[in-house]
């Protein structure tokens, strides 16, 4: 299984500069920032579970812009209603990535329930246009490429390992700076 930080690097490598990427609170946002800070990144430093809602709004209001959600299994479980809402709103430009390490890694790797709950099956039942489960670099590259060329919403469940990055920094931007840069990117 791929380490989550490596999965994030692999995903970001596949995305165009124009793509809006919204990442969830905790280590995922910090790993995104460390891997590739870019103007199209929106770092949600608080409000666990809210990133997918904001990303849904971004995708609906900017239908020509590819929009990517990067969240964890804990965040996805917290906001499972949003998963259903995304499916019902059918934003064609949305790719929803759940980085599933079956734990609340940011708070000390306490277990989530996702070892027993198939989040990809739930997305499929909700009505996502395509659903993929991957666990390595090659799978990520293949499925991101496929999602970019067909109408979404798409869900990619990346099963990854618990592998904290030693000494990883925090986002060195204020919340208002994150907002302003992202807004300017959306134009």
């Amino acid at each position: 299984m791929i380490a989550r930080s490596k999965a994030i690097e692999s995903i970001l490598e596949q995305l165009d500069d124009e793509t809006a990427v919204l990442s969830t609170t905790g280590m995922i946002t910090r790993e995104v920032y460390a891997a590739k800070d870019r103007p199209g990144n929106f770092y949600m430093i608080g409000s666990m579970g809210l990133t997918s809602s904001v990303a849904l709004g971004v995708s609906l209001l900017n239908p020509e812009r590819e929009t990517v959600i990067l969240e964890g299994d804990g965040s996805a479980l917290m906001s499972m209603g949003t998963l259903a809402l995304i499916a019902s709103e059918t934003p064609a430009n949305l790719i929803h990535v759940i980085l599933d390490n079956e734990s609340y890694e940011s708070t000390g790797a306490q277990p989530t329930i996702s070892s027993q709950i198939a989040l990809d099956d739930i997305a499929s039942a909700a009505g996502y246009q395509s659903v993929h489960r991957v666990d390595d670099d090659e799978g990520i590259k293949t499925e991101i490429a496929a999602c970019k060329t067909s109408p979404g919403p798409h869900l990619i469940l990346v099963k990854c390992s618990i592998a904290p990055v030693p000494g990883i920094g925090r986002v060195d931007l204020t919340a208002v700076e994150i907002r302003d840069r992202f807004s300017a990117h959306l134009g």
Partner: protein
Amino acid sequence: MTIPSTEFWAALKSRGFGFFAGVPDSTFGPAYNDLLNDTEIKYVPAVREDVALGVVSAAALSGKNGAVVMQNSGVGNIINPLTSFNLLYKVPALLIIGWRGFGGPPNDAPEHWIMGVKTPEMLSTLDMPVEQLEVEDWEATLDRLLTEIQEQSVPGALLVRAGLLS
């Protein structure tokens, strides 16, 4: 005297609001259906109030105006996004909140009694602008709230009692 629903939504549209999300409330009565049926308005039927606020916040990030429509029983659900997202990032939104339990017991159903009394206090403790809709001078009240929202770049709440919109 009431505020005609069509005039209320038209006033919001004329002020640039075309993107709404919410969770229905009977306070609004048929006015809610007018919102849903308005072809010039995109309404997202959010599954919770915090989800509605998240969706609508994308409007401000996209250079547009967005509004949440909800019941005050959902105020608890928006405290986390307000404190760790909207107020922190200075992302504005208009919150149109139906005020169940206005005046406290014995008004309305028991589940609305506590929040009915505490609603203005809960919102103002976050230093958000809060206004109460009244029939008299309602457009001036709306404009005052929208000005505060814009100047402070934060969410602001418009409290709407039952029977005000027709």
